[in-house]
């Protein structure tokens, strides 16, 4: 059924259809309407879940950790400083391998205070070990939430579904709301082999020693470094798992493609603009204008940022002349994080395209199509003149 709703409601609907069992969240702009909608669903009986209002984001994630350890499907959502407040628990959730799903409506981080969109909040959490999926429109938000629950419980790794604050969270768009029966057949109930069970007691996430050691009953337990190594391996394997899950999704819902990267007019292109999030759809307008002027250019949106789909990205970009990376975040003191990742991925390929970096839209600064057009035109006309450092778009110094 097609409905017209906001991105936050798309996310909440995805959570309802996925039959989340425990929801703990603290409202923060621009995520607030999502939690409001979910509490409505629970209050009206449309969603059979425990809604736990908490006093902070740290507690929200702590509740999700407890709920997930007890074997229930847990969900939370946040933005910006709220995400940062739960960082200690983010690390715990992934180290404990709990399939929690969290939506993040991307917002800039204070100080100075801002409630508007950029992606510094989630990009700064790229090394935590959570899977990060970025949605570009409302259909992708609802679909990604449903896929995220399946992916999380398949690989035992928590998943963040990120979407641009305001630009997606508060705008209204038509999207297909799947039938409950379809979602039920795609997403099996969460039935973990091991969970917190009084009938079968166990110690979870106990202290590890630097080396492996026998536990109280003589079983050799892995040490810290083994557990961390296994997380890294399972994260890398999750790339293929997500592609397989996406195929199942396409069979059930008729929507699919490449869930790792989304290419637009990249066939035969010499130049490719690359970015994360809704900007990739805005860039399509610019690419269309430039294609009309016979510039061979396309755009690629990175939808899964962690684990990093380096092989898919290298395959898409290696034969290009120049890759232009637009970012709404920075690895401060260095460069754009995606820019650095893409250069690292391309380093081992025979043909190395030039790579440019633009920083833009921080704190909700409006991104104008003309600005993008000017930037891309300069990158395409004089690609050799760029230094290995980001250029800032729309600065008023």
């Amino acid at each position, binding site marked *: 059924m097609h409905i017209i709703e906001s991105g936050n409601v798309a996310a909440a609907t995805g959570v309802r259809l996925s039959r989340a069992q425990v929801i703990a969240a603290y409202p923060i702009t621009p995520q607030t309407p999502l939690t409001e909608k979910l509490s409505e669903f629970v209050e009206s009986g449309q969603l059979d879940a425990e809604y736990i209002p908490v006093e902070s984001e740290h507690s929200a994630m702590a509740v999700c950790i407890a709920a997930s350890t007890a074997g229930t499907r847990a969900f939370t959502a946040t933005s910006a400083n709220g995400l940062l407040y739960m960082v200690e628990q983010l690390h715990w959730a992934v180290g404990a*391998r709990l399939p929690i799903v969290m939506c993040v409506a991307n917002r800039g981080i204070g100080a100075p205070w801002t409630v508007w969109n950029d992606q510094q909040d989630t990009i700064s959490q790229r090394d935590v070990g959570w899977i990060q999926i970025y949605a570009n429109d409302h259909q992708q938000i609802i679909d990604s939430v449903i896929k995220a629950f399946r992916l999380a419980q*398949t*690989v035992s790794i928590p998943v963040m579904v990120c979407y641009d604050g305001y630009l997606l969270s508060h705008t209204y768009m038509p999207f297909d709301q799947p039938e409950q029966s379809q979602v039920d057949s795609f997403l099996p109930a969460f039935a973990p*082999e091991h969970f917190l069970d009084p009938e079968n007691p166990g110690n979870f996430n106990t202290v590890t020693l630097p080396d492996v050691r026998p*536990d*109280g009953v003589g079983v050799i*337990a*892995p040490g*810290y470094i083994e557990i961390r190594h*296994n997380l890294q391996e399972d994260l890398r394997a999750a790339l293929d798992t997500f592609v397989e899950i996406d195929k199942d999704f396409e069979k059930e819902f008729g929507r699919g493609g490449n869930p790792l990267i989304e290419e637009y007019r990249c066939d035969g292109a010499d130049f490719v603009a690359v970015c994360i999030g809704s900007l990739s759809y805005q860039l399509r307008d610019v690419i269309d204008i430039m294609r009309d002027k016979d510039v061979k250019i396309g755009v690629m949106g990175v939808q899964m940022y962690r684990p990093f789909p380096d092989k898919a990205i290298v395959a898409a970009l290696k034969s290009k002349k120049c890759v232009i990376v637009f970012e709404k975040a920075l690895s401060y003191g260095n460069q754009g994080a995606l820019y650095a990742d893409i250069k690292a991925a391309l380093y081992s390929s025979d043909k190395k395209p030039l790579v440019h970096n633009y920083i833009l839209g921080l704190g909700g600064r409006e991104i104008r199509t003309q600005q993008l057009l000017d930037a891309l035109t300069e990158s395409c006309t004089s690609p050799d003149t760029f230094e290995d450092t980001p250029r800032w778009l729309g600065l008023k110094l």
Partner: protein
Amino acid sequence: MTTRKFCDKISRSTPGPGDGGNTGSWRVLRPVIDLAACIPAKKNKKACFHCWLYCPDSVVSKTIPPVINYDYCKGCGICAEECPAGAITMVDESTHPVEEK
């Protein structure tokens, strides 16, 4: 799809003595029970057992008399603090002969 065993994904163990290693070696002060003052020992009845109840490491047995497992007792002194009969004394470990197996 991942097939890794659960026990290799997280640090997990079955509860039991010695789950955290041979923690008795951490001990500086040793709790010693004076059986002449210990309530269950003195009355020969299953009674009191505050030491068993309060021990955070579950190394005191609920028996007559209560027995402390020194392989895992860290010497925290909670049993001595909680004993209503004052029957448990914390003794400097260096005054005891080292028990090597």
